C-alpha cells in the first residue's frame, strides 16, 4: 500500500466505501457530482440573505414570512430538503433569537446551506441553551442586559430562520445592497446584521 501513503485513513475508508457502493450499483457516481456541486455552489446563506433583505423592504412580504415562512420563502424559489417546514423568528430591539440543534445538526439548508462546523460541534450545542450571552461574546456580540434572549432548539423537523434587525442608516439602500449586509451568523442568531 506504499503507493497510497498520501491517503489518510479516513480518505481510504471513503474511497473503499464509494468503490463498493458503486460496484454494487447502490450509488450512481454522476449523481454524487450533482449533489456535491449543489451544496458547494448553489445552496448557501446568500439565499437566506435575500429573504431577509426582502423582509426589510417589503412589509407585505414580511407579514407573509412571519405567518407562513415556508410559503413566503418559496416565493423566492427556496424550498425542499431540510426546509420543508420553516418558521421565521424576528429580532426586535427588546428581543434576540438564537437557533441551535442540541441533539444533532438540524439547520435550514435551502436558505443557509450546510451548517458551519461550530454549529455542529459540542461547545456550541452544549452551551448556547445554558449560557447564550457567554456564547454570543465569543462571536463578539454583546446585547443590552435588558434584551430578552430566546434560544430555539430544533428538535423536530421544523427549521428556524432568524430575521435580524435592519441596521440603522441603511434607508437609502436597494434590496440587493441590503442583502450583502446580512451575514450567515445573523440568521442563526450568533451575529447582528
Amino acid at each position, binding site marked *: 500500500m506504499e503507493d497510497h501513503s498520501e491517503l489518510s485513513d479516513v480518505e481510504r475508508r471513503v474511497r473503499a466505501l464509494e468503490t463498493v457502493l458503486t460496484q454494487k450499483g447502490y450509488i450512481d457516481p454522476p449523481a454524487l457530482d450533482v449533489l456535491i456541486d449543489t451544496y458547494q455552489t448553489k445552496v448557501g446563506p446568500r439565499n437566506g440573505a435575500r429573504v431577509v433583505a426582502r423582509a426589510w423592504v417589503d412589509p407585505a412580504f414580511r407579514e407573509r414570512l412571519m405567518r407562513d415562512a415556508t410559503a413566503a420563502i418559496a416565493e423566492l424559489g427556496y424550498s425542499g430538503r431540510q426546509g420543508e417546514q420553516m418558521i421565521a423568528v424576528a429580532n426586535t430591539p427588546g428581543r434576540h433569537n438564537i437557533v441551535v440543534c442540541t441533539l444533532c445538526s438540524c439547520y435550514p439548508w435551502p436558505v443557509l446551506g450546510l451548517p458551519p462546523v461550530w454549529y455542529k460541534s459540542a461547545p456550541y450545542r452544549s452551551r448556547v441553551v445554558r449560557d447564550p450571552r457567554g456564547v454570543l461574546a465569543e462571536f463578539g456580540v454583546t446585547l443590552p442586559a435588558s434584551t430578552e434572549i430566546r434560544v430555539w*432548539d430544533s428538535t423536530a423537523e421544523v427549521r428556524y430562520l432568524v430575521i435580524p434587525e435592519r441596521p440603522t442608516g441603511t434607508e437609502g439602500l436597494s434590496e440587493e445592497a441590503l442583502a450583502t449586509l446580512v451575514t450567515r451568523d445573523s440568521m442563526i442568531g450568533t451575529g447582528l446584521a
Partner: protein
Amino acid sequence: MPYVSHADIGGCSDFGPVVPEPEGTVFHAAWEPRVHAVTLALGATGSWNLDMARSARETLPDYLNLTYYEIWLSGLEKLLIGKRLVTPDELTAGCMQHAPAPVAQVLKADQVAAVLAKGAPTERAPAGPARFKPGQRVRTRATPAEHHTRLPGYARGKTGLIERVLGAHVFADSHARGLGEDPQWLYTVVFDAAELWGSEATPGHSVSFDAWQPYLEAA
C-alpha cells in the same frame, strides 16, 4: 443493552469555547462533501429513514471524539452493515465480494434536483384533536427513553408553556425503531431559563424546543 445517545449534550458545559469560522467555510477536506453526498444518495434508496440514520450516528461509542463527517461516515457504514447491503470485509478490501442485495431505487444525476426540491415533509393528517392549546402549562416526561428520542435530557421533567401547535408529524421515537410513522401532534414548548438551569439562569432568557405530544402531560 441500554440505549445510550452520546449526542444529547445540551446544557453540558465542559467542551471548551466555540470557534467561529468565516461564512464560506463549510468543508475542511475533499472527502467531507463526498461523505455528505453518499449519505444523501443512499438515503434516497429508501433502505432506512432519517430517524434511523440519526439513531445510528448518536449511538456511535466514540461519537464525541469524531469530527462531524467522521460521524456521518461511521454512521453510514453501520447502517449499511446493519442492512446487510455491505459487509465489513468489503469495506476493508475496498471492493465488492458478495452479490448486491436489491434496493428500492438508485438516485440518478437527473433526479437529484427534483428529489432535493421535494424534500421529505413530515407533517401528516392527525389521528385526533390536539390535546394541548397555546398558553397551556405542560410538564415533560421525566424518565429517559430506552430508544432514540428527541426529548433532550436538559428538558426532561420540566414545566413549560405550549407556545405554538405545529401540526401532526411523523413521530421520531417510533420511526427510528421501524414502528412506522405513528404521527403525533407536535408543539413548540417554551421554558423559562430558571426552570432549566436554576439560580445560574440569566433573567429574560428562555429556551424552546419542539415536543411531540407523547413527551408531554398537563401541568
